[in-house]
């Protein structure tokens, strides 16, 4: 049982508002990738630390993040 963040990275504009509100500080831009808009998209560096508070998803202007709690077979 673990929590799961799913990123619709094609919509991400790399604004990092989610990074600024994450209480666990586990979000960062994926500098190894560029999406079709030309931005480095967001990624989670440690999913096991996620508490599924959904602060990142709530502030995201582009509805990039889906938050699920207690997902079987993950983490």
């Amino acid at each position, binding site marked *: 049982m673990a*929590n*799961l963040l799913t990123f*619709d990275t*094609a*919509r991400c*504009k*790399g*604004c*990092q*508002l989610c*990074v*600024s*509100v994450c209480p666990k500080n586990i979000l960062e831009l994926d500098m190894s990738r560029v999406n079709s*808009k030309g*931005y480095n998209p967001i990624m989670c560096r440690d999913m096991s630390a996620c508490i*599924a508070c*959904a*602060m990142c*998803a*709530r*502030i*995201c*202007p*582009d*509805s990039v*993040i*889906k*938050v*699920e*709690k*207690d*997902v*079987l077979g*993950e983490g």
Partner: protein
Amino acid sequence: MGKVVYEKSAGLTDSPMSYCPGCLHGTIHKLVAESLVELGVLDRSVLVASVGCSVVAYQFYNCDAVQAAHGRAPAVATGIKRVSPESIVFTYQGDGDLAAIGTSEIIHAAHRGENITVIFVNNAIYGMTGGQMAPTTLITQKTSTSPKGRVENQAGLPMKVSEMMAQIPSSYYIERVSAHNVPNILKTKKAITKAFRNQIDGKGFSMVEILSTCPIGWHVTPVEATKFVESAMVPYFPLGVYKDEGEVRS
């Protein structure tokens, strides 16, 4: 199966937001869409989009929409609500639209006590046209038409719209909230939901003023912009309920 805590609202289309990175228009769009879905009125809602960055808001909502001339959204909303009283009619206007060219329309719509909901996004600048000074631009704030900062004896003091609207006898519910951090986003959603509920209950004119950002126009990063809202905008534009006739009478 996991429990979904948060996902993109069914009230929004799949169309990507056209706004600049970190612009809180997108966040506020989500709150409006979520409120309409939760109240179960999305299929009978009508958006009246304004002029400004949100001119294309009709692409983003899964409901009917009209795009009004600059500042005239409350007048168009009046017409729609009067011929179709079952529709849930709301305007989505910025400060350049509502507080400048549309001041007359918003004041008279409130004076008539029209049963509509107004979502007023105040980011203290004209975003779409290139970051010019707006009526709500703060003193000393730099814009492309006030490069050394707004000066009081030239441009006057920033307009406090919620305070002004609360003085109108026929307005029903006026609240100022902010979307710059998560606790305030939750309060903003509560205020938006209340404004729509007032309309569903036939209470009359409701307006929610939402402090927002313009990272590109302010020449700061999105995160710095949210800090500017907290440190500079909130002290001048105090948050809170300015008028709630429902509270007074109950």
